[in-house]
């Protein structure tokens, strides 16, 4: 049954109550590794990983203002579109390639996932679960594109263009021959161990190529 998220008590986790996937990711990443964060925002996760796990941190972010803030906090980030930059990297250029709650915003999610497991020895994919029960209820009840805490946007101005569920990702992993090394399911800050496709808001997968 629900257990609390690991990496408790560290200030980073306390500051990021809304992003419990960050806590999971920071727990997964081994110290001293090389990490690429796709859609790194203002570099908060990478800065924490660099300081606390001694990782060599790199980030890609499409928003110029966020890139500036990331660099200003000492993260090697650059402006770029994750749909476009990954093909530039050689195979296994990183130990981990992280995609945190952005897969549903990419134009070509399949291509992105394939590139992630090519460029990284391992990929960490965190995504919001469209199978979460309030989403299902909202659709059933209102008959309109669901709006929930997790998906607060109207359909016409949502950045989310490719919705997926836990089952969808499992199926994709099977089809692409990906090994799921670890997976975590979260509801708020609590771990979900039962019926994740129904009860999890966010899923975090650690995968690699077979």
């Amino acid at each position, binding site marked *: 049954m629900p257990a609390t998220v690991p990496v408790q008590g560290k200030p980073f986790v306390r500051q990021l109550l809304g992003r419990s996937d960050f806590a999971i990711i920071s727990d997964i990443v081994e110290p001293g590794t090389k990490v690429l964060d796709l859609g790194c925002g203002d570099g908060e996760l990478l800065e924490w990983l660099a300081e606390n796990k001694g990782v060599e941190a790199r980030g890609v972010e499409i928003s*110029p203002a966020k890139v500036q803030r990331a*660099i*200003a906090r000492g*993260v*090697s980030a*650059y*402006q770029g579109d994750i749909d476009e*930059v990954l093909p*530039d*990297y050689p195979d296994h250029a990183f130990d981990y390639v992280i995609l945190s709650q952005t897969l549903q915003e990419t134009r070509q999610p399949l291509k992105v996932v394939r590139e992630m497991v090519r460029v990284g020895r391992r990929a960490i994919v965190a995504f919001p679960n469209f199978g979460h029960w309030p989403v299902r209820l909202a659709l059933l009840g209102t008959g309109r594109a669901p709006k929930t805490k997790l998906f607060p946007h109207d359909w016409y101005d949502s950045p989310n263009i490719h919705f997926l569920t836990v089952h969808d990702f499992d199926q994709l992993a099977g089809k692409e021959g990906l090994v799921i090394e670890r997976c975590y399911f979260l509801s708020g800050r609590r771990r979900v161990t039962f019926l994740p496709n129904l009860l999890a808001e966010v899923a975090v997968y650690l995968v690699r190529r077979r």
Partner: protein
Amino acid sequence: MTVETQAVEFDSISLESGAKLSPVSIAYETYGALNAAKSNAILILHAFSGDAHAAGITHETGKPGWWDNTIGPGKAFDTDKYFVICSNVLGGCQGTTGPASINPQTGCPYGMSFPVITIGDMVRLQTMLIDHLGIERLLAVAGGSMGGMQALEWAVSYPDRVIAAIPIATTARHSPQQIAFNEVGRQAIMADPDWCEGNYYSGKPPGRGLAIARMIGHITYMSDESMREKFGRRLREKEKFGFDFSVDFEVESYLRYRGSQFVTRFDANAYLYITKAEDYFDLTNATGSLTAAFQKVTSRFLVISFSSDWLYPSYQSEEIVRVLRRANRNVAYCELPSNYGHDAFLVDVAEQSDVIRGFLASTCKENI
């Protein structure tokens, strides 16, 4: 911060062209203090018309340095933390040996007998200065425009001596458009009857040609938007058109003023030599490709471009970033929003300072 320009002379320097220059002196200034481990030195590289006086106030003239908004206590290049060095480039006219210097063999200024120099030659002379100062490795090299070219050259040619490189508003190779503007400037100088094949040092310098060259330069340093903001179509000290060819518009007045000011401080032959060095700059010269050129690079990079810079457009910075990414090197990059065109790196420095400060702090954390 009151500063003084110093100079050091070396026996000779061998140039890329095969020529040798002897002796050669280099003018430089330093700010802040070198730490005991000599690990906090940053070399600032000036742009086309800059000089060694990058920061502080000159002892004699009271003039602030050209990057005084960026170098100093608490500024982006914080002189409370770093030992900052800036030197005048080889071929220049502000204290370092250039075409206006006396050729010891003839007792007269070199003029056009001065050997053609390259960005690589400028950087080689800087390595001699750094040796002279007893510094093994620079924490960073940084500069905009032609200064950015030198920063790239440092990272490519002396990878063991540069921990971090900050090329700003620059390119890995001069484009045909950039060469074209330089050529118009050179032709303006050489078309001036006072130029006299470069032998004007005992008479009247080619001020008209040099002023026109500078006017063209200034146009390329601004943007359409910054010119509209700064001048509009405003008339200069008149209510209506003069219906003659005296100054009508503010922008004409500005360009003429800039042109005439430049003539008082810059040598026309130095203009020819330095623009030629820019035009020859192409990191692929030696190896055939940028990928090969960056192969040995170990520095981390902060590449900066500006949205309205049409002289050194962002695509040129992005090309550098892409090649570094392909080589899996450590690179940070951002295009900063600014209306100031190419001049932005000198005048619109608030955001630039934030990224430089953060980049240097993390470089320090990893290396000092």
